[in-house]
């Protein structure tokens, strides 16, 4: 047999059909085969020889995501908007009594899982002191919710995150999630760090409010009656005996509405609050939460810095990006500024967000760059600092590179970073803030030097 006739004819016809777009101008745009790629048939890839096998293998198994290796991308802050924050940080660094620097980081799903924020918290507290874990929700609205250093288990709560808009009153607390409970609802929080000195429960005082009880390692710390003639956000603080690892909060009577627990230490340091909502978008802060209620929460927490870190979820809604995002961002900034005028505001752009194209290549979603540009412009106009996460992590196509990294730095949705990827972003943010802080200290030193010089010359005269 020279060639099996029917198969040969089928294959030749198929080849002719495949090459038709090359010869028929009308269908020239309908190529399905790139004939030049067939050169790859004889393209042999030799085994890559390692130059330094030990180092390369260690790098592969544990990529260096340390803060030292992060390439600094300076914060964009021409108006020195972060000065009040840096001043507070300076006081904290000097260990001035009661000098706690508080940061509120509002974000979407990575923040919900305390990715990025946990790394930044760790770095701040390592360098400036640990003033406590800060705020955590009383339960897990999503299985994905979690804070590094805390284990949270809860049952019996009716959980309402702000983005579901189920509550007409908009009273969602600092963390934008409300927990309504009746008798039997309870939460258990296990602390990895047993050196916290106090815990503060935030809740809603309301007409016919019930009561809740707080236990620490099985011992009652107190019972709180939430009944009040007026509906108002309330906070009840408890001292924690040294070494407490487990807290239990339970609804003992009637209906209560809780928001979260805030863990503090009575030492100077940084309190970095991770406030994430799954699927969050900027309108949550701009309009879904009640303005006065949220302002009360912010005023109570007295932040030195508020980080607004949204955009990933919005980036696939092109029309929203082009018509509404700017308005919503402006509204959010206005709300924060009105509530806590003394706090600095940092707009943190979203990370890259990938999508897979018809050629299998993972590219950045088209509207993301526009969204980042809007954030940068609004930040400049409104005197806020801006951190371009998207560019800092590598710009367009980063998620594609991260997906193919070994080990992977982003999940298969090309949105959520793996812990290694989150650590890189956390380090980038921290290093940029640190650089800004060093510049601030240098400015202060120069001013002091100039003052001293001025005084000496006056004395000399």
């Amino acid at each position, binding site marked *: 047999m020279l*060639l099996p006739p029917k198969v040969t004819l089928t294959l030749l016809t198929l080849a002719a059909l495949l090459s038709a777009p090359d010869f028929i101008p009308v269908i020239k745009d309908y190529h399905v085969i790139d004939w030049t790629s067939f050169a790859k048939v004889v393209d042999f890839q030799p085994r890559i020889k390692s130059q330094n096998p030990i180092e390369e293998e260690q790098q592969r198994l544990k990529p260096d995501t340390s803060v030292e290796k992060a390439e600094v991308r300076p914060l964009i802050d021409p108006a020195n908007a972060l000065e009040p924050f840096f001043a507070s940080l300076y006081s904290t660094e000097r260990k001035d009594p009661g000098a706690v620097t508080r940061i509120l980081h509002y974000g979407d799903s990575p923040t919900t899982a305390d990715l990025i924020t946990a790394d930044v918290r760790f770095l701040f507290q390592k360098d400036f002191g640990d003033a406590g874990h800060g705020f955590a929700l009383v339960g897990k609205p999503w299985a994905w919710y979690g804070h590094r250093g805390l284990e949270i288990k809860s049952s019996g709560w009716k959980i309402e995150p702000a983005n579901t808009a189920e509550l007409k009153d908009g009273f969602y607390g600092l963390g934008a999630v409300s927990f309504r409970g009746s008798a039997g609802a309870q939460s258990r929080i296990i602390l990895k760090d047993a050196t916290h000195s106090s815990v503060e429960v935030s809740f809603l005082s309301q007409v016919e409010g019930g009561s809740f009880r707080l236990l620490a390692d099985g011992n009652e710390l107190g019972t709180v009656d939430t009944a009040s003639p007026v509906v108002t956000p309330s906070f009840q603080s408890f001292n924690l005996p040294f070494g407490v690892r487990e807290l239990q909060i339970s609804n003992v009577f009637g209906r209560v509405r809780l928001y979260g627990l805030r863990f503090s230490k009575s030492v100077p340091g940084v309190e970095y609050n991770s406030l994430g909502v799954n699927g969050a978008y900027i309108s949550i802060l701009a309009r879904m939460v009640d303005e006065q209620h949220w302002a009360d929460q912010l005023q109570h927490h007295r932040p030195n810095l508020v980080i607004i870190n949204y955009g990933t979820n919005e980036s696939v809604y092109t029309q929203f990006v082009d018509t509404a995002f700017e308005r919503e961002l402006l509204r959010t900034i206005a709300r924060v500024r009105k509530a806590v005028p003394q706090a600095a505001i940092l707009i943190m752009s979203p990370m890259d967000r990938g999508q897979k194209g018809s050629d299998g290549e993972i590219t950045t979603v088209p509207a993301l760059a526009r969204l980042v540009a809007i954030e940068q412009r609004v930040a400049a106009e409104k005197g806020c600092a801006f951190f371009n996460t998207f560019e800092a992590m590598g710009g367009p196509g980063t998620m594609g590179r991260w997906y193919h990294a070994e080990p992977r730095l982003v999940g298969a949705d090309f949105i959520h970073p793996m812990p290694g990827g989150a650590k890189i972003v956390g380090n980038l943010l921290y290093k940029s803030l640190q650089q800004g802080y060093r510049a601030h200290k240098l400015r202060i030193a120069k001013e002091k030097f100039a003052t001293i010089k001025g005084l000496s010359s006056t004395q000399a005269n």
Partner: protein
Amino acid sequence: MLLSSSTYFLFLSALFFLYWPLSRWRAAGLAALLFANYFFYAKWDLFYLFLIPLCSTCDFAIGLGLGRFQRPAVRKLLVSLSLLLNLGMLAAFKYMPFILENFTRLSGRPAPLWQWTFPLGISFYAFQSLTYTIDLYRKDAKPTQSLLAHLTATSFFPTILAGPITRVPDLIKQFEKPNKSLDAADGSRALFLIGLGLLKKLLLADYLAENLVNRVFDFPGLYSSAEVLTGVYAYALQLYFDFSGYTDVAIGSALLLGIKLPQNFNMPYAATNINDFWRRWHISLSNWLRDYLFFSLPGKRNAVMPYCNIIITMALGGLWHGASWNFVIWGLLHGVAQAVARGWQSWRGQKATPFTPAWFRTFCTVQFVCFAWIFFRSTNLEQAGKIIDQLGELTYSLDNVSRPLWIVLAIAIAGHYLPKSWFEQIRETFVRSPFVVQAAALMALIVAIQYIAATGAAPFIYTNF
């Protein structure tokens, strides 16, 4: 060179046009195939050009020895040498990192770095190669005198990445057959199988992987219990369509060269018990494990040992899939389930009427198989634990499962449970069609893959094993 890539099909077409004119001369045809086999290996790594011929030649020499020597001690020594060679190669080039990692974990001392990992195809090569020497040792086959036929059979490229694991003596018999030919019906069936394999892999398996499975397994906490469960079911379908798609392309490619390979799947998720499942899933591996491992284990006449042997066989079968405890647990789960099922059947008698209807038994079997897939798919035990935890949360939202995804899932389920007679009818309609219609159908498939799949091909899952 993936079996779903355009370069592979150019390679296969070129071989087709080279091989058939040369096949008039047996040696020339075999030489063309051997060249193609080694060309295929070299595309993965040039080191294979040293490793595979060396091991195959050793097995060939051992085979000659087994044909010549009749003294049991010598024969045992020879087959042991072959086992040592093939399993040693498997240990050295695939399992060494796993062995060293566990050494470090147990001893607390850092293990030396191992640079010689060539996992691709080694497992399939080793198992396939051992069929030759073990069959000769058991006198189930006769040794070939042709080194060329032996080298070609042991490295036959369609089977080497992910099976089907074919007995080398069977392949040699086909290679040594004079006056080979390919009739129009078999040729058309080959093209049909290749097309079907691509459809399964690129339009179904990859879609499910990209749009649900990978996401759910990466971050189970982002999804509700119902979505995670859907993801686990989707993985069961993905794995089936991925692997059976690969097998179809492999069987079709071999058939295009006049070689018939064994079937590997027979509607596995229609199995009514776990033993039935293993008669339908990865049939060539099940047969290999049964014939070459299970039957070799001691204690056949003991009351308890056969059950332990099932568990041992499946645990080793799990480890064969990958150097990780996940695969061991997956194998153990299947081993224990098979032992229990076998015990139950023995106790009740083979012909006893089951208590429950067939659909219910199929349902339960599929649930168990899907549960075990969690360990198979997870990259480590922690991830498997997270998936199981999330299933236990009992949350019901299905917001993350889009309508197109439901449609693809429905097509995948319907495709899996398509009655055999319907499938054969479709295939034979293609076979009887004129060549122009066949070419047009294949062209339509390529266009569909280009414009519908639109994701770029992922590697076949089983090429990792």
